[in-house]
């Protein structure tokens, strides 16, 4: 690998930027098809009701209206499936209630899809939707975990007694119990992981079309994983074979997990386009996005840590209740289980870990992955608990962490994972130095002189990314493999198209992957273009989430390039009248070892397509595809340190400094990696200090717009200090681990630990996320009595 100006390791400016900066991006809502109609989705205004009947007559008669469809019209079409089967402690399968795309018989959350009104314009469709007369016979609603598990609670689904979806566990309970019996100290904590609304700035949108000439459906949709949508929509909902269903996810304006799921609207639109024989377009209004994009997190947990007299961790016991919302979204069931419970070893050598998770249906928006997905929840709990343990044992909070670090790799945790590589001391040391940890007390004193309470907080963490080995996840209930495909097409004149099944919606794959390919093949960076987001162009793919694109998708491309080189060697050997074994490839040239006789990649490519003088038995063409199924998860790790100043009068928390020290594996483009870290940190800080989705008891969404759901703004955040200590992943050839979720996983406990540290002099020793000014002020009032 050359490491040149555009190669691996270089901060190459992004290929994507020219079009985005000049307004030439092509997002779903920018696409218009000839003859398209507009579909408006009528949503339930109530959280739980039986539908007595729906009268669509007046709406049908409204100007411009072509059709109104309800659940009854779509009866017989498959429901929206979920992608992961979880088994309970007793071996029983989770409860998997039907999820009709358009509500049938009942609505189960505010925002549930009730009807689609199709008209010549969106305004007409929306106006006509007001005329659809739905007889909602309201039922009691359960809008929280507490309400769902209460005695005599209303039932969200008849199939799910007590509103329970599953009661799952991981780890050795007996061994963990034994660890507690022999412990010198037991430290307990109760934490809530606040419910969040993802809020990618591009609202979801879709356009569906049916071509009667080919019997082919095309759906343009705001998705992180078009092939996954094709699989779910085609095989499970509409019963369409893959070759008759094309999914295009063009430029997508951010995902953060909320554009992973296959949504009801995608099924409704596609089915409607087939019914009408015309393209139908839908763009979600933000106000509807709040109540229809999948939400994230929403856990209530209690946990305890067993320690010996020296502060060594002996055992960890975690009990969590998770809110899944009204229906099971695509990855809903694995987020609070296999993306959560198996993270509880963290970077520590805790020998016995047990985690149980009971999940509930509620009359709220379905909950699914959100940046970090399960791992932020685990990290938050663990790092709050470790912090509390240090305090209760009177130990230094850095030393208690360091004392328990994993140092020998590979390391088999007691909860399934095997860490391949890491150096947690190095990331910790780097963070402490970068944050001037040792100089903090002077800063605290200086702030106190100004009437401000200054605090510092830390979290040390690992992630499991690069999702995921298919055999492993399959044994755990995944209904898909989580490999990735990559194709490399060397064109006759030497330019290159790279096809990836991952999807870029901000991550800069078009640049990063081009760097890998141009570096490996020794061709000009600008001669390489990356194609993604179209099931008709890409062999297959599982998409982008779980910080998997580089480690899994990048590796597939890497392997495809290796195949290209191998084939190129055969062609070059023929041209050079040498043996293929003697051909070396470097810097774009095939050379006979030990000689100066060589052929360029361009010459080889041309030969491959104009095979006048060509090896016998070798296929023409120079294009290779590789599927890569990872051997293990990857394990990025890091230390985050946050410094805050609290105004005790108002409760405002001012973020003074945020320091990230991360091991994300090999870095292809440092500029892009830093950007990913910044974004994740902002998201994690948003969770810790600002963002909170709240429902009223009746299931009405209380935080349903930017007027009352706080998004992090520029002035809420400081500039970040980003530091790297790199170890390479041992099981993929790039050595890559993943970076997209780091910030949102690592930083929330550091923020809250800092806030508590700041407030401890005032008698405050606990804090719930988000630490809003009102909550901080109330905590101070309470502590001061």
């Amino acid at each position, binding site marked *: 690998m050359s490491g040149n100006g555009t190669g691996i390791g270089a901060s190459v400016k992004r290929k994507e930027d020219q079009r985005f900066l000049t307004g030439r991006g092509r997002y779903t809502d920018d696409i218009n098809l000839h003859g398209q109609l507009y579909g408006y989705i009528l949503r339930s205004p109530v959280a739980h009701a039986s539908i007595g009947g729906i009268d669509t007559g007046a709406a049908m008669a409204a100007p411009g209206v072509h059709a109104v469809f309800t659940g009854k019209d779509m009866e017989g079409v498959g429901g929206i499936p979920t992608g992961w089967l979880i088994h309970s402690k007793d071996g029983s399968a989770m409860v998997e209630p039907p999820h009709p795309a358009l509500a049938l018989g009942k609505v189960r959350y505010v925002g549930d899809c009730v009807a689609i009104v199709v008209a010549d314009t969106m305004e007409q469709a929306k106006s006509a939707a007001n005329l659809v007369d739905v007889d909602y016979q309201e039922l009691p609603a359960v809008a929280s975990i507490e309400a769902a598990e209460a005695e005599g609670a209303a039932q969200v689904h008849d199939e799910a007694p007590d509103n329970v979806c599953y009661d799952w566990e991981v780890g050795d309970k007996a061994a963990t119990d034994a660890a507690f019996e022999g412990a010198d100290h037991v430290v307990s904590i109760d934490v809530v992981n606040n419910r969040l609304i993802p809020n990618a700035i591009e609202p979801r949108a879709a356009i569906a079309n049916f071509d009667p000439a080919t019997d082919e459906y095309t759906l343009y949709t705001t998705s992180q994983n078009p092939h996954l949508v094709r699989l779910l929509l085609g095989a499970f909902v509409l019963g369409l074979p893959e070759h008759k269903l094309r999914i295009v996810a063009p430029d997508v304006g951010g995902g953060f997990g909320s554009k992973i799921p296959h949504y009801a609207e995608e099924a409704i639109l596609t089915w409607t386009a087939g019914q009408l024989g015309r393209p139908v377009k839908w763009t979600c209004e933000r106000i509807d996005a709040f109540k229809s994009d999948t939400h994230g997190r929403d856990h209530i947990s209690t946990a305890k840590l067993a320690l010996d007299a020296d502060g060594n961790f002996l055992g960890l016991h975690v009990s969590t209740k998770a809110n899944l919302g009204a229906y099971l979204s695509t990855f809903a069931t694995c987020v609070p289980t296999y993306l959560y419970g198996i993270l509880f070893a963290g970077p520590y050598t805790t020998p016995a870990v047990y985690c149980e998770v009971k999940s509930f249906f509620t009359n709220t928006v379905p909950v699914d992955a959100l940046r970090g997905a399960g791992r932020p929840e685990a990290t938050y709990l663990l790092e709050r608990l470790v912090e509390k343990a240090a305090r209760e044992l009177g130990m230094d909070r850095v030393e208690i962490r360091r004392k328990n670090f994993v140092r020998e790799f590979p390391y088999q945790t007691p909860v399934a994972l095997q860490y391949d590589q890491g150096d947690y001391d190095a990331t910790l040391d780097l963070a402490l130095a970068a944050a001037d940890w040792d100089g903090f007390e002077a800063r605290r004193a200086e702030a106190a002189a100004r009437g401000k309470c200054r605090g510092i907080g830390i979290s040390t963490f690992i992630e499991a990314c690069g999702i995921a080995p298919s055999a492993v996840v399959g044994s755990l209930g995944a209904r898909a493999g989580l490999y990735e495909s990559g194709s490399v097409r060397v064109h006759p004149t030497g330019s290159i198209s790279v096809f990836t099944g991952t999807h870029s919606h901000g991550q800069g794959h078009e640049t990063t992957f081009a760097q890998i390919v141009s570096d490996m093949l020794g061709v000009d960076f600008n001669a390489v273009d990356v194609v993604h987001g179209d099931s008709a162009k890409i062999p297959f793919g599982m998409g982008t989430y779980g910080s998997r694109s580089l480690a899994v998708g990048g590796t597939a491309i890497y392997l495809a390039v290796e195949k290209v080189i191998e084939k190129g060697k055969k062609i070059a050997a023929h041209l050079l009248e040498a043996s293929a074994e003697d051909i070396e490839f470097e810097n774009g040239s095939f050379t006979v070892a030990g000689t100066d006789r060589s052929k360029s990649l361009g010459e080889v490519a041309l030969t491959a397509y104009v095979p006048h003088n060509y090896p016998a038995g070798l296929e023409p063409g120079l294009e290779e595809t590789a599927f890569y199924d990872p051997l293990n998860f990857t394990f990025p790790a890091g230390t985050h340190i946050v410094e805050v100043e609290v105004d005790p009068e108002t409760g405002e928390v001012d973020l003074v400094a945020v320091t990230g020290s991360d091991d994300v594996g090999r870095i292809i483009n440092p500029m892009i990696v830093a950007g990913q870290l*910044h974004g994740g940190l902002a998201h994690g800080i948003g969770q810790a200090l600002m963002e909170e989705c709240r429902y009223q008891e009746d299931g009405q969404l209380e935080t349903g717009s930017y007027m009352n759901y706080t998004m992090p703004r520029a002035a809420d955040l400081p500039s970040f200090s980003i530091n790297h200590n790199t170890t390479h992943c041992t099981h993929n050839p790039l050595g890559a681990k993943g970076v997209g979720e780091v910030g949102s996983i690592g930083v929330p406990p550091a923020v809250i630990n800092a806030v508590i540290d700041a407030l401890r002099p005032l008698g405050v020793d606990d804090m719930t996320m988000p630490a809003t000014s009102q909550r901080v002020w109330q905590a101070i009032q309470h502590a001061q009595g």
Partner: protein
Amino acid sequence: MPTVTMTVNGMERSGTVEGRTLLVEFLREHLGLTGTHVGCDTSQCGACVVHVNGTSVKSCTCLAVQADGADVTTIEGLANGADLHPMQEAFREHHGLQCGFCTPGMVLSAVDLANQNSDPSEHEVREWLEGNLCRCTGYHNIVKAVQAGAQAMGGGS
């Protein structure tokens, strides 16, 4: 139905609209200028920011008829041919964009600031961007880009 005429990116453009047609709808749907985005319906995200008579406004909170006769600049009109505007170039140079959706509004908001202040402090940039939400970047690189872009504009024009 009212007819509106305005200068958009230096060209006179006319169209027949409804009274309720928003400026952003006129730009996107009548003129096909889809670089201006809509990210919310409560005038907060700033993805729709354009310049009307030289200052930045939210085109989702402006009627097309209110812009009748105005001089409108959208993201498509900022670059000079193939040459990026200095603020666009600064965003590229400093990786001030990821998914690109907030970018047009962010850039046009930044240009408005730079027109008033060629050397804004980090604090001034962060305060100015209150009306522009970004979910990708954590604003870190946007702030750097705006500062660099403002200086480039001050030095260059």
